[in-house]
Every structure is written in C-alpha cells, then in structure tokens.
C-alpha cells in the first residue's frame, strides 16, 4: 500500500472552459468511470461499512447474525489476546524496519560506487521481492527445519528455529528482511543518484573524505527517501501475513508469532471458531493504526522534509 503525498496530486486546471463544455463531457465521463467506481464502492468502501456492522454482531456463519452492541469491542479490548498480538506485531515491525532500512542503505551505498558488476547485484537483490511471500515462507520453513533443514545442516546443529518461543519471531522477521532488502536498496539507489554531482565535487574540493561526505551530505539529503522507505515499510509490516502463515500457521510457539493479521485470520476462519465479530473489531483497530501512520506521513510530507538545493 503506497499512499501518494498530496504534492503528487496536481490540481487539474480548468481555465476558461464554458459550462456547456462541462456538461457535454459528463455522460461520457460517467460511462468511462462506471466499472471502476462500481468496483471501488462494492469491494473497498462497502466492506468498511460491513466490517463496522460485523463488529457489533455475533455471527458464526451458521446461525443468523445477532446484534450484540459493543460486546465484541469489550471482549477484544479486555481479553489479553489482542494486546498480545499487537505487542508481537510491534516487536516484529521493530525488528524488521531498522534492519532492512540499514541493510538497504548499506547495499545502495556500495552499489552507488559504480563498480563493474553493480547492475548485476542490483537485479539479484530484487529477486525475492517479486516472488510469492507464501512460497518463500514454505521454502524457509524447510531451511529452518530441525531435521533435514539446510540451516541446521550448514551449522551442524538441530536448533528448533520455529518452535522455540525465543527464536520464532526473530526467524520470521529474518525472512521478511531477506525478502525486502532489495526493494529498499532500489529506493536508496534512486535517492543517491538524485544527489547533484556538483555538491559532491564541492565537498571533495573542500577536502571531505568518503566518510564525512556520507554523514554530512548524502545521509541528510536522503531524508525524504528514508522517510518514504520507513513509512511504506511500517505499513506493509503491520499487515504481514503470507510468509508468517507459511512458517507458523497457528500463531507460533506460545503465540510468539501471533501477529495481528494472523490473529484476524485465525479468529475468523482458522481455528474453526468463526468468530467474525472479534476479527472485525481487530481489523478496524489495525485499520485505525494504519490510518494514523498514513496521516502522520501526509503531515510530514506537507511540512516538506526536503533540502532546497536551488
């Protein structure tokens, strides 16, 4: 999910057109818009209303739904499961985001030296990004397997990576990082390429070394890129599901990998409980968190986190 900054939405000018012109276009416009509009209303807007209704309803898909008011909300917010899932999700995000951002920046800086072969490495790093997270999760489930798994064979150990409460979440986070570093690298590469050459030449003339140039010039100028990478990364990681489901389908040992998206799925469909009301409440809470992150992003962009180079 990527939300464009408001600046990316240019106002469409309507200079000196007559009212007649406006109305002549209208029927054609509505015909052209009809399918996409129907899709958005039916499959993106209406579900928000339905999920709000579900959150006030008790329904297990078999008996008819009954209205229970704030019951589900009280249950979710007072029982420990939801708090635990939120905590696990925040821990997951806290492991994934700094690591993938740091590694992505490192790889981008190394690639931006323009050494021969850089183009090859750049392409290689993106490969996991385009593959199905579910399939990659299954591959890593084998790699992590205590017996017959590649990692333990390599290390000569038989560690229970995915069934130990202490190791499961870091293992799941590592797979996430592994699949996303290349994506982050691409954005930092683009950011580095946008730094004007004369700025770096001027720094070199003033006797700045590579280290100083990085900390004093490149890193500050990468501010907007870093911010974009952080925000989109946080939003995506809060929703992470596919590879976590593949690695630990039941929420992990003692719920160690029971992230919020997995909990929503398990409560609604996974455990046979079909507790749609609970799932709806948690989905709305997750939505609220993501909206707050997005609004903060917009605010921040509106204040323009860029350095004026002109």
């Amino acid at each position, binding site marked *: 999910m990527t939300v464009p900054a408001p600046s990316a939405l240019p106002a469409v000018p309507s200079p000196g057109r007559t009212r007649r012109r406006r109305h002549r276009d209208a029927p054609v416009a509505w015909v052209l818009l009809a399918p996409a509009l129907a*899709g958005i209303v039916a499959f993106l807007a209406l579900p928000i209303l339905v999920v709000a209704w579900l959150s006030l309803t008790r329904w297990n898909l078999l008996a008819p739904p009954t209205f229970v008011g704030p019951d589900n909300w009280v249950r979710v917010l007072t029982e420990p499961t939801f708090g635990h899932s939120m905590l696990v999700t925040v821990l997951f995000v806290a492991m994934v985001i700094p690591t993938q951002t740091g590694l992505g920046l490192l790889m981008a800086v190394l690639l931006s030296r323009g050494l021969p072969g850089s183009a090859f490495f750049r392409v290689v790093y993106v490969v996991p990004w385009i*593959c199905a997270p579910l399939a990659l999760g*299954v591959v890593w489930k*084998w790699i992590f397997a205590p017996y017959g798994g590649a990692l333990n064979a390599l290390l000569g150990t038989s560690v229970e990576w995915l069934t130990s409460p202490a190791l499961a979440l870091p293992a799941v986070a590592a797979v996430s990082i592994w699949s996303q570093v290349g994506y982050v690298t691409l954005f930092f590469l683009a950011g580095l390429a946008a730094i004007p050459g004369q700025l770096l030449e001027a720094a070199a003339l003033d006797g700045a070394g590579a280290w100083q140039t990085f900390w004093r010039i490149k890193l500050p100028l990468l501010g907007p890129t870093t911010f974009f990478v952080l925000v989109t990364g946080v939003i995506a990681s809060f929703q992470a599901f596919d590879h976590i489901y593949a690695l630990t389908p039941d929420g992990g040992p003692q719920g160690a990998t029971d992230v919020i998206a997995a909990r929503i799925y398990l409560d609604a469909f996974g455990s046979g409980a079909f507790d749609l009301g609970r799932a709806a409440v948690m989905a709305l809470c997750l939505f609220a968190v993501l909206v707050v992150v*997005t609004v903060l992003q917009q605010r921040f962009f509106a204040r323009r986190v860029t350095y004026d180079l002109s």
Partner: protein
Amino acid sequence: MTSPDTRGRRRREALRPASLLAYLVLAVGAVLTLAPFLLSFLTALKTPRQFASQSPLAWPDPVTGENFAELFGGGGFVSPVVVTAQVVVVVVVGQLVFSIMAAYAFAWLRFPGRDGLFWLFLATLMVPQVVTVVPLYTMFSAVGLSNTFWALVLPFVLGSPYAVFLLREYFRGIPADLLDAARIDGAGTWTILWRVVVPLARPIVATLVIITVVTHWNNFLWPLIITTGPTWQTVTVATAALQGQHDSNWTLVMAATTVAIAPLLVVFAVFQRHIVSSISLTGFR
C-alpha cells in the same frame, strides 16, 4: 559508451582495498539472496530416499523429475496452475481496461464532482486487504458466490485505485494538442482513448501489466479464505495445503514452491530492466 579512459579508471578503482571490501559485502549479499532459491530447487530434484539419507546440502544424485511427476499427477497441481493463470489473465485485462477508462475520465474530461471523486479513489488506497477480507467473505457468502471463479476475480477485475492513479498522472503528461488534433479529425472519445492515449502511455501500461501479473500470481490471503477444497485452489493456496499435508516430504513440497516461484523468475529475467526501474518509479507494492 564509456571511453577507454573512464574504463581504465573504473578498473583501477575496482582493485582498491575499499572496493574489494565492497565487492565482498555485495557478493555475500548475493549468495544469501540466491541460496534459498538454489537449495530448494536442488531439493526438488532429489529422490526422497537421497534426501532422507544424505545431507540436505548435497548435490542431487541422481537428478530426478519424480517429485514434479508426483506433483502434477497425484498431487493435483495441474488445476491450481490453470486456475491461477486464468485468474491472472482475466484480472490483468479487466483491471487495465477499466482503470484506463477511469483514468482518462479523471485526466481529460470535465464533469461535476470530478475532484471529489478522485479523492475518494485515492482514499481507498489506504484500505488494506487484511481489513476487507472478512467483510468480503461474508458478502460473497451471502450472495452464494464463495468458492467460485467469480469470487477469485470480481474484487479486482473492475480496476484498482492504484492503477487509476498512476495512469491518470501519466495521461496528464500527454500534450493536449495531440488530443485536440484527433478531435478535429473527427475522432470520438473511444477512438482517442485507445488509438492516441493508450499507445502513447505504453511504458506505464507495461509497468502495470507486470505489477498486476506479479500481484495476482502471488495473491494468497483472499484465495485462501474464499476457496474450499481443490476445485478453485490457486497455486499459493495449493502449495500451503500440500505443505500442511506432507509436513516432512520436503522434496515434493520444494517441487511445489518451485512451480509457484519459477514463472515469475522467468518474467523477471525477461523484463528485469523494466521491473527494476519501475519499482523505484511507482513504489510498486
């Protein structure tokens, strides 16, 4: 073209200690990135007996296709591949056609309420799939469409707000003179859209085709929820199900992940330059 001079300088540059260290880090990164793919593919080429008796890191000896034969035979993997391919084709065509139509209306037509409506489109970009799957499931069940082909394609086939946004931005960049010239020549909206605008927007259309193919080949959560039983299973759902049934039959399971991953690796190999440049251009998620 790099001149011999720069090439010589770059070669000298490449041999400095700092550069060698950079190469070392880059190479370690590449090995870590590719090793899981290579190892899983090699495992898929082993006999279960070799896998059980030797190190999981051993080279396949003999190389066998029996896992793939079992996967497409008893494993029932033909249907998921066909279903997924159909879903991808229908969604790509529908989403592109309907998004192009909407984007053109937003970019070049004037009608009351246009800007407010465009903001509504942008606002729906914020709605995550995890939030909509539960209500969508109840909606599709209520009208008796769960576990059908329609359920797999309907939520996506009518266009995507993301595609509409990207296309509109691109369409706005097309010179108005070109459209006016076509209009003076007597072309109607439909002709202008498909004969003038879309050919000029070929790069962004190609990008969107690739994004949509990747997204829907890989899609998992919605097909997992809305399908039951093998009839409409997609490749990702079938892979997850197979892994659940054959927990330690890793040679068969790795054949399944190979089938789930390989088609996109081919797409990536063919279009890698285009994909890499469009990721940083569009944010592609």
